[in-house]
């Protein structure tokens, strides 16, 4: 259970309207061992500093993309970040081993309810299918893909009173990641980290 350093890359183009992501980001800023980066805040002109971002990756063990799901993908700055930072011979290629062995996960909010992300739902694909490009990016760069931490139906979450649970799970997730107590081996077949965290709460930490 070696302590791990977490790099949180947060992308929200209108943080002043954010009900969930911004508080989550602010909470993450206060967790020891988490380096929380507001990408839009740091690069308002999208001119990402490649050297700085690569150094950050090298310095951390866990990488989190935190974002609201936009058109089944990340907001554009995160794509820009991937295009620029995950360079040949840094993240992939014959000498590109800088990310090997790191863990990677997405913490996202989705507008539609969970039932929409289903073959029969109006989004037609389960969320994990939609996140395949990111999963494969993790694979190719030698990072270990963890299931996403998701808040479905984010627009109504506050009204439905679902925020408190989500926030405490977020807090707990970050703590487990930094302490190293979250072992990928324990995740089994969970589709989301939410299920794992719920399971951990209800069954006293035992994975299903």
């Amino acid at each position, binding site marked *: 259970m070696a302590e791990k350093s977490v790099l949180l890359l947060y992308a929200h183009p209108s943080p002043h309207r954010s009900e969930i992501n911004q508080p989550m980001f602010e909470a993450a800023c206060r967790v020891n061992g988490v380096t929380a980066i507001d990408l839009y805040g740091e690069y308002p*002109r999208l*001119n*990402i*500093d*490649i050297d700085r971002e690569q150094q950050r990756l090298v310095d951390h063990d866990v990488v989190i993309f935190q974002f609201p799901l936009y058109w089944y993908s990340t907001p554009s700055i995160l794509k820009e970040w991937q*295009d*620029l930072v995950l*360079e*040949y*011979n840094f993240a*992939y*290629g*014959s000498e590109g081993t800088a990310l090997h062995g790191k863990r990677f996960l997405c913490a996202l909010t989705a507008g539609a309810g969970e039932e929409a992300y289903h073959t029969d739902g109006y989004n037609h694909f389960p969320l994990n299918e939609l996140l395949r490009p990111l999963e494969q990016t993790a694979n*190719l760069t030698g990072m270990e893909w963890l299931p996403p931490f998701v808040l479905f139906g984010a627009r109504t979450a506050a009204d439905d009173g679902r925020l408190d649970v989500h926030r405490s799970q977020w807090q707990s997730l970050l703590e487990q990641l930094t302490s190293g107590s979250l072992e990928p081996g324990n995740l089994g077949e969970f589709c989301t980290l939410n299920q794992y965290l719920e399971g951990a709460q209800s069954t006293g930490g035992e994975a299903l």
Partner: protein
Amino acid sequence: MTEYFLQAFIYLVAAVITVPIAKRLGLGSVLGYLIAGVVIGPVTGLVGAETNTIQHFAEFGVVMMLFLVGLELEPKVLWEMRNRLIGLGGLQVSITTVAIGAIALALGQVWSVSLAIGLIFALSSTAIVLQTFSEKGVSKTEGAQNAFSVLLFQDIAVIPMLAFIPLLALPELVEAAQALAQSADHHESMSLVAGLPGWAYALVIIGAIIGLVVGGHFLTRPLLTFVASSGLREIFTATALMLVVGIAALMSLVGLSPALGTFLAGVVLANSEFRHELESNIEPFKGLLLGLFFITVGAGINFGILSDNLWAILGLTLGVMALKGVVLYFLARLFKISGSDRWLFTLSLAQAGEFGFVLLSFSVQNHVLPTELAQTLSLVVALSMLLTPALFILYDKVILPRFEDRSNEGQPDEIEEMGTVIIAGMGRFGQIVNRMLVGIGVNTVVLDYQAGQVDNLRKINTRAYFGDATKPDLLHTAGIAECELLVVAIDNQDAAVELVEYVKHTYPNVAVLARAFDRGHGYRLRQAGADVIQSETYCSALEIGTAAMRKLGCHPFVAEQQKNSFKRIDAEQSDILYKAWLADTEEGERFDTHYRDLFMQLEEQIKTAMNTDRVDRHSLSDRGWTPPPKGYTDALKDKED
């Protein structure tokens, strides 16, 4: 031959030594030339009687100057200034003539002599005044524009004066001249119009002017195009000279002022595409000839007559200037020229001019003035020209500051509201900052020490206050203690640095955002503690640079990336340079060789960084979106296996 070389050398040496010194001392080049002339003429006696001949030759500089003035003046502009030209100029010439003539009459001269003197002193020095205006960069001010109208009218008025003065001939002088076989009058020796009846003379003049305008408009263009296409620079220069000299010759032949002719030609060519080419070709000739002209004026000062009648001549000079000044001041009031412009107008035109010399010698030739009187008067003209730079200095050092102060002294405005942001300086720069902040609902307090500017801003509902932002008590009432930001956008560089220093020292919690004039100013602001510094022209220059890259065929997005890398590298280097500058400053030297070497070295780095591929074939500026090498997928497959 040797003699010519020696003379030319003496004139040139005198000019080369005196003019830069005079300029450095803030006296202006005209006074420099005049002093050079005094030194080589009356003081050391290096040059002698030939100055008179040279002066006639050098008067051609005035002709060239009017050609250049015409080039700057499109016909439309000339038409727009017709009221001032005729009203202001006409009144100045007539009132001054009458006033000076009356005084001459009162001093015991005959009426015809008095009138001639009045005419001669009504003129001012186009050469000195325009030269000084452009050197001081005030050509566009209202005062200078009006002075220009008057000068233009005077230059035109010389023509009828030349026609009129012979009518004033004194019978006894004519008789004396007849005894001398009437040989002095060479002025009409070369003339197409000598002996023509009045109506034919008028026809010739009208024909010449029409020929000039029509020919200038239709013939010069094909000619210049033809010459330019030959690609021979010196032939173009020759053509330009030929035009000016030819027009001057034509005008002299028909008895018109060459200066007026070339001026008209200049106006005709003002719209032509060759305007700047012509300007740059004639300009050096004009400068040298005018310089020569002023040297001869200085050299021609007859210290003998001067020392004999020192007080009389001094008195006359000051009297003439004072009188002209009073008339000008009165006219300026009449034409609603106000503030410092009125004084610029008054002081700049108070001297007599180079046409005064021309008219004086012409009057003597035509037996209007006795020679001794003409010599005295020519001293008065020269002295008044010599004193003109002093009047400009008076304007610069005494009058201008007083006006700046008067409009800016007063009590600072009462500031009613506190803002979260104080903006010091409301020029073009501060205004944009303010509009942006006000646009998103930020409370700003705007300070400017130019009352007129504040008035204008108030008219468009900007909350602007009049007052000097560099004064601590005004800053305090503006709420500096409670505000979050201070934006420094004042023009005075030193005052800006002091303001930053004061605020960062007294109110360390207030963030200071400062506009820098250039790199050096930026360093000083940084040293003073400004939090954000932006060079005023940097961003627009980057945009133009990027636009240039695009125009050269660079893909817009690539151009944008190049701009960003330039900006990044420049910012990094700026730090290094700042430290070098700091070290130099502490040693008491700014921008010394160490700094310069470093600057050039870094400039080299920018080139390398923007052009050369890195070892791994990713060029630094083009790093983003560089595709992986061809065949890289093979390696990926291998790994999978």
